[in-house]
């Protein structure tokens, strides 16, 4: 075991047993897991750009901004367990010319600090980057207090706020790099940081432009975040049944790539959305808002039903709520009347 892999097995939140693992990432080197690239990528950005500031709220060991702290101690701030102060302080720094990246659990930024994000970051049009990691129910049996299944809905109603979900480690790198000169405030949603790889290289991305990962003519699955990987796996399973599935990584929830949604409806005839989020208000709702203005096609929002999650390890929860590949495959077959 290399030192890097050894590091992957230690630490408060990133080191987890198989039982706690969100999704299988066995064999994925640490350098290709989001939790391990966040501090490194931000550190590299700070090497080149004096505007970069990184801050967290007593979670440097969880989000691995420790690497940034070690490389740029003068531009790293740990605010302790005081998230509201952190977000507003980031806005103050942004008003003085910085681009602050404020990282904490999605539940404790997007949900706890929704007003600070709206009033101090978005209304002011300042380049604050709120990094909400451990989103969805990736915290598993930590329970609802540590889940964020409402954050996309809350964030996407804030005027002027760009809302982006990261897919894997390479996608996270792309999002961070592109965020540096992006106008206005951003909410960047991350998974647990141990998300399986979708992109073998750092992809070219444009905020507001979806990425079509697989072509298909029978169905489109529009997915976001770590669920993109499940969508691709499901598409493979569906292909074995003769169903050709287009898979779209809708990484930017706002501004939404409406053209890609209309194309999915027109060209594949059936659309399913897939997200680790309450089906009210998230990606599914955003896509539905576009589809109701298109010609009618079979459509299914798939995500967390409108309830608080059971207690359980992440993998167990994904299986229970049919958010793993077999579950997604089954839901797609239902949508197509092939169940």
């Amino acid at each position, binding site marked *: 075991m290399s030192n890097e892999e050894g590091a992957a097995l230690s630490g408060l939140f990133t080191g987890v047993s198989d039982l706690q693992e969100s999704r299988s990432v066995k064999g994925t080197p640490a350098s290709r897991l989001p939790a391990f690239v966040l501090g490194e990528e931000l550190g590299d950005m700070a090497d080149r750009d004096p505007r970069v500031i990184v801050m967290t709220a007593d979670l440097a060991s969880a989000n691995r901004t420790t690497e940034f702290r070690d490389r740029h101690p*003068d531009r790293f701030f740990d605010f302790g367990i005081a998230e509201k102060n952190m977000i507003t*302080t980031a806005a*103050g720094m*942004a008003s003085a010319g910085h681009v602050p990246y404020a990282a904490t659990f999605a539940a404790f930024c997007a949900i706890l600090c929704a007003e600070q994000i709206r009033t101090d970051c978005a*209304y002011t049009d300042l380049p604050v980057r709120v990094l909400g990691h451990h989103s969805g129910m990736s915290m598993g049996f930590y329970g609802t207090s540590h889940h964020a299944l409402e954050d996309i809905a809350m964030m996407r109603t804030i005027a002027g706020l760009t809302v982006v979900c990261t897919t894997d480690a390479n996608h996270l790198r792309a999002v961070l790099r592109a965020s540096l000169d992006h106008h206005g405030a951003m909410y960047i949603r991350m998974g647990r940081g141990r998300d399986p790889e979708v992109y073998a290289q750092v992809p070219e991305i444009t905020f507001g432009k979806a990425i079509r990962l697989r072509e298909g003519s029978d169905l489109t699955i529009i997915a976001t975040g770590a669920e993109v990987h499940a969508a691709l796996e499901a598409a493979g399973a569906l292909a074995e049944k003769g169903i050709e599935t287009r898979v779209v990584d809708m990484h930017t929830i706002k501004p939404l790539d409406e053209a890609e949604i209309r194309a999915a409806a027109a060209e594949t005839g059936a659309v399913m959305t897939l997200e680790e989020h309450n089906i009210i208000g998230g990606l599914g709702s955003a896509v539905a808002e576009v589809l109701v203005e298109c010609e009618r096609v079979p459509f299914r929002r798939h995500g967390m039903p409108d309830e608080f999650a059971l207690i359980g390890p992440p993998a167990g929860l994904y299986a229970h709520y049919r958010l793993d590949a077999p579950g997604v495959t089954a839901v797609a077959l239902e949508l197509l009347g092939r169940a």
Partner: protein
Amino acid sequence: MAERTAAHGRNVSKEFLEERAKFVRLETVRLTKIAGAGHYSSTFSAAELLACLYYGQLRINPAEPDWPDRDRFVLSKGHIAIGLYPILADLGYFDPKLLDDYTRLGSPFGDHPDMKKIPGCDFSSGSLGHGLSVCLGIALAARPQKRDYRVYCMLGDGELNEGQVWEAAMAAGHFGVQNLVAIVDANRLQIDGATSDIMGVEPIDERFAAFGWDVQRIDGHDIDAVLAAFDALPSGTTGRPQLIVADTIKGRGVQMMELSLNWHVGNLVGRDYDAVIEELKAGLKPVAATEVRP
């Protein structure tokens, strides 16, 4: 202290600052009439503080509102923006005529200030409890940028009910940001009653001191005392944030409003309007009330 040269080059006297405080109160009454409602009394309590800050203390240049080395001022008690706008106009940040459409459809000027629309406004405010965190961020940004500006934050005493204020106070003490200056306009009232009755915040000075702040406590209507407090701010390295608790009287300057619960938001019309204008023009009378009254 008779003469004082502000950093932006104005020669100011105590008489001049009293005149500017009067100007703030008169403009507040005039603009409120345009809007049909306004925060008279919590603006009046801060009139001397605002005048001393803008005409006697802040290192600013109205010709260059975004000057990176300027001192910042954040009005955390954003509901008294009506008293700030006339000062910004008077200093030349924008045409004073723009205020004649205060709060009308499409105006840059609402009840709470918008930094995107108003030159000279360093940060938008309105939701109480945020401003000290904003100022902490601006103050911390001076470190990697190696700048020597100060950041001033005005809070109300009622505002200290908000928990985020204490998150920021704790962090400011922890990070030792001495270029942060908080001014609490302790006017003793909040909307529902006396601050001591609704949610007690005293002893403000001792509470902040316990968080690692240097504290001064002054009469916020005494211009000499306000300027002396500014002069006492340390220029050397102390590693401690600075607090000025300004004891004031909500509604100061209009006797029927002083420490009255009725005038947090109001609208003077007709003879009442004319009488208040005359009262303000005549200058400050002795304080009419020493206790909160309904």
